[in-house]
Protein backbone atom coordinates (compact mmCIF):
# COMPACT_ATOMS: atom_id res chain seq x y z
CA UNK A 1 0.00 0.00 0.00
CA UNK A 2 1.46 3.40 -0.90
CA UNK A 3 2.09 5.85 1.92
CA UNK A 4 0.51 9.30 2.19
CA UNK A 5 2.00 12.16 0.19
CA UNK A 6 2.69 15.20 2.35
CA UNK A 7 1.85 18.18 0.17
CA UNK A 8 0.03 21.51 0.00
CA UNK A 9 -3.72 21.85 0.41
CA UNK A 10 -4.07 23.08 -3.20
CA UNK A 11 -2.26 20.06 -4.57
CA UNK A 12 -4.05 17.63 -2.26
CA UNK A 13 -7.43 18.86 -3.53
CA UNK A 14 -6.33 19.15 -7.17
CA UNK A 15 -4.98 15.59 -7.17
CA UNK A 16 -7.77 13.87 -5.29
CA UNK A 17 -11.11 15.63 -5.79
CA UNK A 18 -12.76 15.40 -9.21
CA UNK A 19 -15.99 16.75 -10.63
CA UNK A 20 -18.78 14.24 -10.05
CA UNK A 21 -17.13 12.57 -7.06
CA UNK A 22 -18.94 11.39 -3.99
CA UNK A 23 -17.21 13.29 -1.25
CA UNK A 24 -17.40 12.80 2.48
CA UNK A 25 -16.30 15.64 4.80
CA UNK A 26 -16.68 14.39 8.36
CA UNK A 27 -16.16 15.85 11.82
CA UNK A 28 -18.83 15.72 14.51
CA UNK A 29 -18.84 19.39 15.67
CA UNK A 30 -15.13 18.86 16.34
CA UNK A 31 -12.39 18.95 13.65
CA UNK A 32 -14.64 19.87 10.71
CA UNK A 33 -12.41 20.29 7.63
CA UNK A 34 -13.40 23.87 6.77
CA UNK A 35 -10.16 24.91 5.06
CA UNK A 36 -10.31 21.89 2.75
CA UNK A 37 -13.96 22.58 1.95
CA UNK A 38 -13.09 26.16 1.05
CA UNK A 39 -10.30 25.00 -1.25
CA UNK A 40 -12.75 22.66 -3.01
CA UNK A 41 -15.05 25.65 -3.54
CA UNK A 42 -12.16 27.77 -4.85
CA UNK A 43 -11.11 25.07 -7.29
CA UNK A 44 -14.66 25.14 -8.65
CA UNK A 45 -15.57 21.47 -8.22
CA UNK A 46 -19.04 20.66 -9.58
CA UNK A 47 -21.61 17.93 -9.54
CA UNK A 48 -20.44 16.49 -6.23
CA UNK A 49 -22.40 14.11 -4.03
CA UNK A 50 -21.74 15.63 -0.63
CA UNK A 51 -21.86 13.21 2.31
CA UNK A 52 -21.93 14.28 5.92
CA UNK A 53 -23.89 13.17 9.00
CA UNK A 54 -24.28 16.75 10.18
CA UNK A 55 -24.05 19.15 7.24
CA UNK A 56 -23.40 22.46 8.89
CA UNK A 57 -21.95 25.74 7.65
CA UNK A 58 -19.28 24.16 5.45
CA UNK A 59 -21.92 22.28 3.44
CA UNK A 60 -24.20 25.32 3.47
CA UNK A 61 -21.34 27.16 1.76
CA UNK A 62 -20.52 24.39 -0.73
CA UNK A 63 -24.19 23.98 -1.65
CA UNK A 64 -24.70 27.73 -1.94
CA UNK A 65 -21.66 28.00 -4.23
CA UNK A 66 -23.07 25.36 -6.58
CA UNK A 67 -20.64 22.49 -5.91
CA UNK A 68 -23.30 19.88 -5.12
CA UNK A 69 -25.70 17.75 -7.12
CA UNK A 70 -26.77 15.56 -4.20
CA UNK A 71 -26.62 15.59 -0.42
CA UNK A 72 -26.46 12.49 1.81
CA UNK A 73 -27.08 13.41 5.44
CA UNK A 74 -28.81 12.68 8.72
CA UNK A 75 -29.11 16.08 10.45
CA UNK A 76 -28.82 19.34 8.56
CA UNK A 77 -28.84 22.41 10.76
CA UNK A 78 -26.73 25.08 12.39
CA UNK A 79 -26.40 23.49 15.86
CA UNK A 80 -28.04 25.53 18.59
CA UNK A 81 -28.78 28.33 16.10
CA UNK A 82 -31.31 27.17 13.50
CA UNK A 83 -31.61 26.34 9.83
CA UNK A 84 -29.02 26.05 7.10
CA UNK A 85 -30.51 28.65 4.78
CA UNK A 86 -28.46 27.78 1.69
CA UNK A 87 -29.31 24.09 2.06
CA UNK A 88 -33.00 24.95 2.45
CA UNK A 89 -32.91 27.35 -0.50
CA UNK A 90 -31.50 24.57 -2.68
CA UNK A 91 -34.04 21.97 -1.51
CA UNK A 92 -37.07 24.26 -1.38
CA UNK A 93 -36.32 26.58 -4.34
CA UNK A 94 -33.57 24.90 -6.43
CA UNK A 95 -31.10 27.76 -5.89
CA UNK A 96 -28.44 27.87 -7.20
CA UNK A 97 -29.14 24.35 -8.44
CA UNK A 98 -31.60 21.57 -7.65
CA UNK A 99 -30.31 19.39 -4.83
CA UNK A 100 -31.18 15.72 -4.67
CA UNK A 101 -31.24 14.39 -1.11
CA UNK A 102 -30.67 10.98 0.43
CA UNK A 103 -31.72 11.18 4.03
CA UNK A 104 -30.86 8.85 6.91
CA UNK A 105 -30.71 8.73 10.67
CA UNK A 106 -27.41 9.18 12.52
CA UNK A 107 -27.49 5.55 13.58
CA UNK A 108 -27.84 4.45 9.97
CA UNK A 109 -25.05 6.65 8.64
CA UNK A 110 -22.70 5.68 11.47
CA UNK A 111 -23.37 2.03 10.68
CA UNK A 112 -22.94 2.64 6.94
CA UNK A 113 -19.51 4.20 7.45
CA UNK A 114 -18.59 1.34 9.76
CA UNK A 115 -19.65 -1.17 7.10
CA UNK A 116 -17.70 0.76 4.47
CA UNK A 117 -14.55 0.62 6.61
CA UNK A 118 -15.23 -3.08 7.18
CA UNK A 119 -15.42 -3.80 3.45
CA UNK A 120 -19.01 -5.03 3.60
CA UNK A 121 -21.64 -4.31 0.94
CA UNK A 122 -24.23 -3.22 3.50
CA UNK A 123 -24.75 -2.29 7.13
CA UNK A 124 -27.17 -4.32 9.24
CA UNK A 125 -28.59 -2.79 12.41
CA UNK A 126 -31.75 -2.35 14.47
CA UNK A 127 -33.20 0.88 13.22
CA UNK A 128 -35.79 2.76 11.16
CA UNK A 129 -38.56 1.07 13.13
CA UNK A 130 -42.01 2.50 12.54
CA UNK A 131 -41.03 5.72 10.81
CA UNK A 132 -41.47 7.26 7.36
CA UNK A 133 -37.84 7.44 6.25
CA UNK A 134 -37.93 4.06 4.45
CA UNK A 135 -40.92 5.38 2.44
CA UNK A 136 -38.83 8.20 0.95
CA UNK A 137 -35.45 6.46 0.69
CA UNK A 138 -35.32 3.25 -1.33
CA UNK A 139 -31.81 2.57 -0.06
CA UNK A 140 -33.34 1.58 3.28
CA UNK A 141 -34.20 -2.12 3.11
CA UNK A 142 -34.12 -5.05 5.54
CA UNK A 143 -32.72 -8.51 6.16
CA UNK A 144 -34.06 -11.24 8.40
CA UNK A 145 -31.90 -12.68 11.17
CA UNK A 146 -31.48 -16.36 10.21
CA UNK A 147 -31.63 -17.38 13.89
CA UNK A 148 -34.39 -15.27 15.46
CA UNK A 149 -36.37 -14.14 12.42
CA UNK A 150 -36.08 -10.52 13.56
CA UNK A 151 -36.31 -7.99 10.75
CA UNK A 152 -33.21 -5.79 10.82
CA UNK A 153 -32.60 -2.61 8.84
CA UNK A 154 -30.03 -2.68 6.04
CA UNK A 155 -28.56 0.19 4.05
CA UNK A 156 -25.69 0.17 1.55
CA UNK A 157 -22.22 0.61 3.01
CA UNK A 158 -20.85 4.12 2.60
CA UNK A 159 -18.02 3.99 0.07
CA UNK A 160 -17.20 7.59 -0.92
CA UNK A 161 -14.75 8.32 -3.72
CA UNK A 162 -12.98 10.73 -1.40
CA UNK A 163 -12.98 11.38 2.33
CA UNK A 164 -11.66 14.65 3.73
CA UNK A 165 -10.93 15.10 7.44
CA UNK A 166 -8.95 17.43 9.71
CA UNK A 167 -6.97 16.18 12.73
CA UNK A 168 -4.51 17.50 15.27
CA UNK A 169 -1.26 15.95 14.07
CA UNK A 170 0.58 13.91 11.53
CA UNK A 171 4.13 12.64 11.86
CA UNK A 172 6.71 12.98 9.09
CA UNK A 173 5.95 9.48 7.80
CA UNK A 174 2.32 10.48 7.36
CA UNK A 175 0.68 8.70 10.28
CA UNK A 176 -2.22 10.69 11.69
CA UNK A 177 -3.47 11.13 15.27
CA UNK A 178 -7.05 12.07 16.26
CA UNK A 179 -8.19 12.74 19.79
CA UNK A 180 -11.10 14.20 21.69
CA UNK A 181 -14.44 13.71 19.95
CA UNK A 182 -13.42 11.41 17.10
CA UNK A 183 -16.74 11.07 15.30
CA UNK A 184 -16.71 8.83 12.23
CA UNK A 185 -13.54 10.21 10.68
CA UNK A 186 -11.48 7.05 10.93
CA UNK A 187 -14.28 5.07 9.32
CA UNK A 188 -14.78 7.69 6.59
CA UNK A 189 -11.11 7.49 5.58
CA UNK A 190 -11.03 3.69 5.68
CA UNK A 191 -14.27 3.52 3.66
CA UNK A 192 -13.13 5.89 0.92
CA UNK A 193 -11.13 5.17 -2.23
CA UNK A 194 -8.99 8.30 -1.71
CA UNK A 195 -8.50 10.55 1.29
CA UNK A 196 -7.15 13.94 2.26
CA UNK A 197 -6.18 14.75 5.84
CA UNK A 198 -5.42 18.32 6.85
CA UNK A 199 -3.65 18.68 10.20
CA UNK A 200 -2.85 21.44 12.65
CA UNK A 201 0.82 20.50 12.53
CA UNK A 202 3.31 17.93 11.36
CA UNK A 203 5.48 16.69 14.22
CA UNK A 204 8.36 14.30 14.85
CA UNK A 205 6.45 12.17 17.32
CA UNK A 206 2.67 11.80 17.54
CA UNK A 207 2.92 10.99 21.25
CA UNK A 208 -0.30 8.94 21.46
CA UNK A 209 -0.77 6.25 24.11
CA UNK A 210 -0.69 2.52 23.27
CA UNK A 211 -4.27 2.57 21.96
CA UNK A 212 -4.37 6.08 20.49
CA UNK A 213 -6.69 6.67 17.53
CA UNK A 214 -4.24 6.55 14.67
CA UNK A 215 -4.60 6.23 10.92
CA UNK A 216 -1.43 4.70 9.45
CA UNK A 217 0.19 6.55 6.58
CA UNK A 218 -0.70 3.80 4.10
CA UNK A 219 -4.44 4.39 4.60
CA UNK A 220 -4.24 8.02 3.43
CA UNK A 221 -3.68 9.60 0.00
CA UNK A 222 -2.52 13.11 0.91
CA UNK A 223 -1.74 15.14 4.02
CA UNK A 224 -1.44 18.92 4.23
CA UNK A 225 -0.53 21.04 7.23
CA UNK A 226 -3.26 23.67 7.61
CA UNK A 227 -3.13 25.43 10.99
CA UNK A 228 -6.61 26.53 12.11
CA UNK A 229 -7.95 24.32 9.32
CA UNK A 230 -11.05 23.44 11.35
CA UNK A 231 -12.02 27.05 12.19
CA UNK A 232 -14.81 27.97 13.13
CA UNK A 233 -15.19 24.44 14.53
CA UNK A 234 -12.48 23.46 16.97
CA UNK A 235 -9.39 21.35 17.45
CA UNK A 236 -9.09 19.79 20.90
CA UNK A 237 -5.82 20.98 22.41
CA UNK A 238 -5.42 23.83 19.87
CA UNK A 239 -8.36 26.22 19.80
CA UNK A 240 -12.01 26.32 20.93
CA UNK A 241 -15.13 26.37 18.81
CA UNK A 242 -16.03 29.90 17.69
CA UNK A 243 -19.67 29.80 18.72
CA UNK A 244 -20.08 33.47 17.77
CA UNK A 245 -19.18 32.63 14.17
CA UNK A 246 -21.95 30.03 14.05
CA UNK A 247 -24.42 32.62 15.37
CA UNK A 248 -23.16 35.29 12.96
CA UNK A 249 -23.55 32.91 10.02
CA UNK A 250 -27.34 32.87 10.31
CA UNK A 251 -28.00 36.41 8.95
CA UNK A 252 -25.23 36.09 6.34
CA UNK A 253 -26.75 32.92 4.90
CA UNK A 254 -30.37 34.11 4.93
CA UNK A 255 -29.87 36.27 1.86
CA UNK A 256 -28.42 35.09 -1.48
CA UNK A 257 -26.59 38.35 -2.19
CA UNK A 258 -25.14 38.73 1.29
CA UNK A 259 -24.01 35.11 1.15
CA UNK A 260 -22.31 35.46 -2.25
CA UNK A 261 -20.59 38.69 -1.19
CA UNK A 262 -19.32 37.08 2.00
CA UNK A 263 -18.02 34.02 0.15
CA UNK A 264 -16.35 36.22 -2.41
CA UNK A 265 -14.40 38.26 0.11
CA UNK A 266 -13.76 35.56 2.73
CA UNK A 267 -13.14 32.51 0.54
CA UNK A 268 -12.82 33.16 -3.20
CA UNK A 269 -10.32 36.00 -2.86
CA UNK A 270 -8.17 34.21 -0.32
CA UNK A 271 -5.55 31.52 -0.69
CA UNK A 272 -5.63 27.92 0.50
CA UNK A 273 -5.38 27.71 4.26
CA UNK A 274 -5.58 31.47 4.74
CA UNK A 275 -8.76 31.17 6.79
CA UNK A 276 -11.96 33.21 6.83
CA UNK A 277 -11.44 35.30 9.96
Amino acid at each position, binding site marked *: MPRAVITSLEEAVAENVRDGDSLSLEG*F*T*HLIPYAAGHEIIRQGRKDLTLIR*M*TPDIIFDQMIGMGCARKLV*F*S*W*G*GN*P*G*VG*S*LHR*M*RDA*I*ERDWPLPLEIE*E*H*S*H*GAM*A*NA*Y*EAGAAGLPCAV*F*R*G*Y*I*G*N*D*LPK*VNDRIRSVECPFTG*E*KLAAIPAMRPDVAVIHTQKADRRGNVLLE*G*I*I*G*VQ*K*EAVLAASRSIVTVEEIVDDLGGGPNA*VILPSWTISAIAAVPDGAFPS*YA*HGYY*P*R*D*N*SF*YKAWDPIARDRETFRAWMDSHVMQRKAGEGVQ
Partner: protein
Amino acid sequence: MSDRGYTADEMMTVAASRALQNGQVCFVGIGQPSAAANLARQTHAPDVVLIYESGTLETRPDVLPLSIGDGELAETALTNVSVPEMFRYWLQGGRIDVGFLGAAQVDRFGNINTTVIGGTYLKPKTRLPGAGGAPEIATSARETFILLRQSPRAFVEKLDFITSLGHGNGGNSRAEAGARTLGPTRLISDLCQMAPDPETRELIVTTIHPGVTRDQITAATGWDIRFADSVTETPVPEPTELAVLREIHARTARAHAGQA
Protein backbone atom coordinates in the same frame (compact mmCIF):
# COMPACT_ATOMS: atom_id res chain seq x y z
CA MET B 1 -40.57 35.89 34.24
CA SER B 2 -44.06 35.55 35.63
CA ASP B 3 -45.05 36.99 38.98
CA ARG B 4 -44.56 33.47 40.36
CA GLY B 5 -40.81 34.04 40.40
CA TYR B 6 -39.96 31.64 37.57
CA THR B 7 -40.63 31.35 33.85
CA ALA B 8 -42.65 28.69 32.06
CA ASP B 9 -39.43 27.42 30.51
CA GLU B 10 -37.88 27.11 33.96
CA MET B 11 -40.89 25.14 35.18
CA MET B 12 -40.52 22.85 32.15
CA THR B 13 -36.79 22.31 32.69
CA VAL B 14 -37.22 21.66 36.40
CA ALA B 15 -40.02 19.14 35.77
CA ALA B 16 -37.84 17.32 33.25
CA SER B 17 -34.92 17.34 35.64
CA ARG B 18 -37.00 15.74 38.37
CA ALA B 19 -38.07 12.96 36.07
CA LEU B 20 -34.48 11.68 35.97
CA GLN B 21 -33.51 9.32 38.76
CA ASN B 22 -30.09 9.12 40.34
CA GLY B 23 -27.91 6.49 38.63
CA GLN B 24 -29.88 6.43 35.40
CA VAL B 25 -28.00 6.54 32.13
CA CYS B 26 -29.39 9.36 30.06
CA PHE B 27 -28.91 10.14 26.36
CA VAL B 28 -29.03 13.92 26.19
CA GLY B 29 -29.71 16.35 23.35
CA ILE B 30 -28.71 20.00 23.17
CA GLY B 31 -30.98 22.77 24.43
CA GLN B 32 -33.52 22.11 27.16
CA PRO B 33 -32.67 18.39 27.61
CA SER B 34 -29.11 19.40 28.35
CA ALA B 35 -30.25 22.00 30.90
CA ALA B 36 -32.60 19.51 32.56
CA ALA B 37 -30.08 16.68 32.72
CA ASN B 38 -27.32 18.86 34.13
CA LEU B 39 -29.71 20.42 36.63
CA ALA B 40 -30.57 16.91 37.82
CA ARG B 41 -26.88 16.04 38.10
CA GLN B 42 -26.22 19.15 40.16
CA THR B 43 -29.20 18.65 42.47
CA HIS B 44 -30.98 15.39 43.34
CA ALA B 45 -29.17 12.99 40.98
CA PRO B 46 -25.39 13.44 41.34
CA ASP B 47 -24.73 10.02 39.83
CA VAL B 48 -26.92 10.38 36.77
CA VAL B 49 -24.80 9.38 33.77
CA LEU B 50 -24.98 11.78 30.83
CA ILE B 51 -24.18 10.62 27.31
CA TYR B 52 -24.18 12.79 24.19
CA GLU B 53 -24.36 11.25 20.72
CA SER B 54 -21.01 12.78 19.74
CA GLY B 55 -19.43 9.93 21.70
CA THR B 56 -18.86 11.50 25.12
CA LEU B 57 -19.51 8.93 27.88
CA GLU B 58 -20.39 10.08 31.39
CA THR B 59 -19.73 13.74 30.83
CA ARG B 60 -19.98 16.49 33.51
CA PRO B 61 -20.09 19.81 31.66
CA ASP B 62 -19.85 22.98 33.71
CA VAL B 63 -21.51 24.98 30.96
CA LEU B 64 -24.18 23.80 28.56
CA PRO B 65 -23.02 22.89 25.07
CA LEU B 66 -24.19 24.97 22.11
CA SER B 67 -23.68 21.95 19.91
CA ILE B 68 -23.73 18.23 20.60
CA GLY B 69 -19.96 17.94 20.31
CA ASP B 70 -18.63 20.95 22.21
CA GLY B 71 -15.13 20.64 23.66
CA GLU B 72 -16.52 21.00 27.18
CA LEU B 73 -18.29 17.64 26.78
CA ALA B 74 -15.14 15.81 25.69
CA GLU B 75 -12.94 17.38 28.35
CA THR B 76 -15.24 16.48 31.24
CA ALA B 77 -16.11 13.00 29.96
CA LEU B 78 -14.97 9.73 31.51
CA THR B 79 -13.94 8.79 27.96
CA ASN B 80 -14.85 9.44 24.34
CA VAL B 81 -15.85 6.76 21.85
CA SER B 82 -16.41 6.89 18.10
CA VAL B 83 -19.86 7.70 16.77
CA PRO B 84 -20.32 4.20 15.29
CA GLU B 85 -19.46 2.72 18.69
CA MET B 86 -21.86 5.12 20.40
CA PHE B 87 -24.74 4.02 18.21
CA ARG B 88 -23.83 0.31 18.19
CA TYR B 89 -22.55 -0.55 21.68
CA TRP B 90 -24.17 2.10 23.82
CA LEU B 91 -27.54 2.99 22.28
CA GLN B 92 -28.43 -0.14 20.27
CA GLY B 93 -26.63 -2.23 22.90
CA GLY B 94 -29.40 -1.33 25.36
CA ARG B 95 -27.28 0.66 27.82
CA ILE B 96 -29.45 3.81 27.84
CA ASP B 97 -32.18 4.14 30.46
CA VAL B 98 -33.69 7.43 29.32
CA GLY B 99 -33.49 9.28 26.02
CA PHE B 100 -34.61 12.90 25.76
CA LEU B 101 -36.33 13.88 22.52
CA GLY B 102 -37.30 17.26 21.18
CA ALA B 103 -39.55 17.78 18.16
CA ALA B 104 -41.06 20.21 15.71
CA GLN B 105 -44.34 18.31 15.82
CA VAL B 106 -45.75 15.63 18.10
CA ASP B 107 -49.03 13.74 17.81
CA ARG B 108 -51.33 12.25 20.46
CA PHE B 109 -49.32 9.01 20.50
CA GLY B 110 -45.97 10.68 20.99
CA ASN B 111 -44.79 10.14 17.43
CA ILE B 112 -42.42 12.87 16.36
CA ASN B 113 -41.67 14.91 13.23
CA THR B 114 -38.38 16.72 12.72
CA THR B 115 -38.17 16.29 8.94
CA VAL B 116 -40.53 18.40 6.82
CA ILE B 117 -43.64 20.56 7.27
CA GLY B 118 -46.08 21.33 4.47
CA GLY B 119 -45.70 20.70 0.75
CA THR B 120 -44.31 17.32 -0.19
CA TYR B 121 -41.27 15.49 1.12
CA LEU B 122 -39.28 16.43 -1.99
CA LYS B 123 -40.59 20.00 -2.12
CA PRO B 124 -41.53 20.85 1.44
CA LYS B 125 -42.78 24.18 2.62
CA THR B 126 -40.34 24.00 5.51
CA ARG B 127 -37.31 21.76 5.50
CA LEU B 128 -36.39 20.87 9.09
CA PRO B 129 -32.95 19.54 10.12
CA GLY B 130 -34.04 15.90 9.93
CA ALA B 131 -33.70 12.80 12.05
CA GLY B 132 -30.30 12.96 13.74
CA GLY B 133 -30.12 10.30 16.41
CA ALA B 134 -33.83 10.42 17.25
CA PRO B 135 -35.23 7.41 15.33
CA GLU B 136 -32.92 5.00 17.13
CA ILE B 137 -33.08 6.80 20.49
CA ALA B 138 -36.87 6.47 20.21
CA THR B 139 -36.68 2.69 19.84
CA SER B 140 -33.44 1.69 21.67
CA ALA B 141 -33.54 3.73 24.90
CA ARG B 142 -35.51 1.93 27.61
CA GLU B 143 -37.91 4.89 27.73
CA THR B 144 -38.02 8.40 26.30
CA PHE B 145 -39.11 11.78 27.63
CA ILE B 146 -40.40 14.30 25.08
CA LEU B 147 -39.71 17.98 25.82
CA LEU B 148 -41.68 20.48 23.75
CA ARG B 149 -43.31 23.89 24.23
CA GLN B 150 -47.01 23.52 23.72
CA SER B 151 -48.83 25.13 20.76
CA PRO B 152 -51.36 23.99 18.17
CA ARG B 153 -48.64 24.12 15.49
CA ALA B 154 -46.47 21.72 17.47
CA PHE B 155 -49.11 19.45 19.07
CA VAL B 156 -50.89 18.32 15.91
CA GLU B 157 -53.71 15.99 14.99
CA LYS B 158 -51.64 14.45 12.20
CA LEU B 159 -47.88 14.64 11.61
CA ASP B 160 -46.60 15.73 8.20
CA PHE B 161 -43.90 13.08 8.53
CA ILE B 162 -43.10 10.45 11.17
CA THR B 163 -39.39 10.82 11.94
CA SER B 164 -39.37 8.87 15.19
CA LEU B 165 -41.80 6.28 16.47
CA GLY B 166 -43.76 6.93 19.65
CA HIS B 167 -46.77 4.73 20.34
CA GLY B 168 -47.63 4.44 16.65
CA ASN B 169 -51.40 4.26 16.22
CA GLY B 170 -51.81 3.49 19.89
CA GLY B 171 -52.64 0.24 21.64
CA ASN B 172 -50.11 -2.46 20.84
CA SER B 173 -49.00 -0.94 17.54
CA ARG B 174 -45.57 0.15 18.76
CA ALA B 175 -44.57 -3.38 19.72
CA GLU B 176 -46.12 -4.73 16.51
CA ALA B 177 -43.87 -2.42 14.51
CA GLY B 178 -40.90 -4.17 16.13
CA ALA B 179 -39.97 -1.84 18.96
CA ARG B 180 -38.96 -3.62 22.17
CA THR B 181 -38.76 -0.65 24.51
CA LEU B 182 -41.27 1.47 26.41
CA GLY B 183 -41.28 4.51 24.12
CA PRO B 184 -42.45 7.90 25.39
CA THR B 185 -43.42 7.49 29.04
CA ARG B 186 -43.65 11.21 29.65
CA LEU B 187 -44.13 14.45 27.74
CA ILE B 188 -43.13 17.65 29.47
CA SER B 189 -44.29 20.98 28.07
CA ASP B 190 -44.30 24.54 29.37
CA LEU B 191 -47.92 23.99 30.47
CA CYS B 192 -48.20 20.46 31.81
CA GLN B 193 -46.95 16.91 31.87
CA MET B 194 -48.52 14.04 29.97
CA ALA B 195 -48.19 10.27 30.13
CA PRO B 196 -49.59 7.55 27.88
CA ASP B 197 -52.89 5.95 28.83
CA PRO B 198 -51.98 2.37 29.82
CA GLU B 199 -54.31 0.87 27.22
CA THR B 200 -54.80 3.27 24.33
CA ARG B 201 -51.27 4.75 24.71
CA GLU B 202 -52.71 8.19 23.95
CA LEU B 203 -50.90 10.98 25.80
CA ILE B 204 -53.10 12.42 28.53
CA VAL B 205 -52.45 15.26 30.93
CA THR B 206 -51.29 14.04 34.35
CA THR B 207 -49.99 17.19 36.05
CA ILE B 208 -50.66 20.84 35.30
CA HIS B 209 -48.05 23.48 36.01
CA PRO B 210 -49.07 26.03 38.68
CA GLY B 211 -51.21 28.86 37.30
CA VAL B 212 -52.06 27.08 34.04
CA THR B 213 -55.70 26.35 33.22
CA ARG B 214 -57.23 23.36 31.45
CA ASP B 215 -58.52 25.74 28.80
CA GLN B 216 -55.04 27.00 28.07
CA ILE B 217 -53.85 23.43 27.56
CA THR B 218 -56.81 22.54 25.34
CA ALA B 219 -56.27 25.68 23.25
CA ALA B 220 -52.57 24.89 22.85
CA THR B 221 -53.20 21.33 21.65
CA GLY B 222 -54.12 20.46 18.06
CA TRP B 223 -55.98 17.31 19.08
CA ASP B 224 -58.84 16.79 21.48
CA ILE B 225 -56.62 16.54 24.57
CA ARG B 226 -57.77 14.37 27.48
CA PHE B 227 -57.05 14.79 31.17
CA ALA B 228 -56.34 11.98 33.61
CA ASP B 229 -58.94 11.23 36.28
CA SER B 230 -56.59 12.40 38.98
CA VAL B 231 -54.75 15.40 37.55
CA THR B 232 -52.47 17.06 40.11
CA GLU B 233 -50.58 20.30 40.16
CA THR B 234 -46.91 20.06 39.19
CA PRO B 235 -44.88 20.92 42.30
CA VAL B 236 -43.35 24.39 41.96
CA PRO B 237 -39.62 24.73 41.38
CA GLU B 238 -37.64 24.80 44.62
CA PRO B 239 -35.45 27.85 45.24
CA THR B 240 -32.34 25.61 45.06
CA GLU B 241 -33.39 24.23 41.69
CA LEU B 242 -33.94 27.71 40.31
CA ALA B 243 -30.65 28.97 41.73
CA VAL B 244 -28.67 26.08 40.26
CA LEU B 245 -30.42 26.31 36.88
CA ARG B 246 -29.86 30.06 36.62
CA GLU B 247 -26.23 29.66 37.59
CA ILE B 248 -25.83 27.04 34.82
CA HIS B 249 -27.36 29.43 32.30
CA ALA B 250 -25.26 32.36 33.53
CA ARG B 251 -22.04 30.33 33.30
CA THR B 252 -23.05 29.19 29.84
CA ALA B 253 -23.77 32.72 28.63
CA ARG B 254 -20.42 33.96 29.99
CA ALA B 255 -18.52 31.07 28.40
CA HIS B 256 -20.14 31.45 24.98
CA ALA B 257 -19.76 35.24 25.00
CA GLY B 258 -16.07 34.74 25.74
CA GLN B 259 -15.63 32.88 22.47
CA ALA B 260 -16.52 35.81 20.25
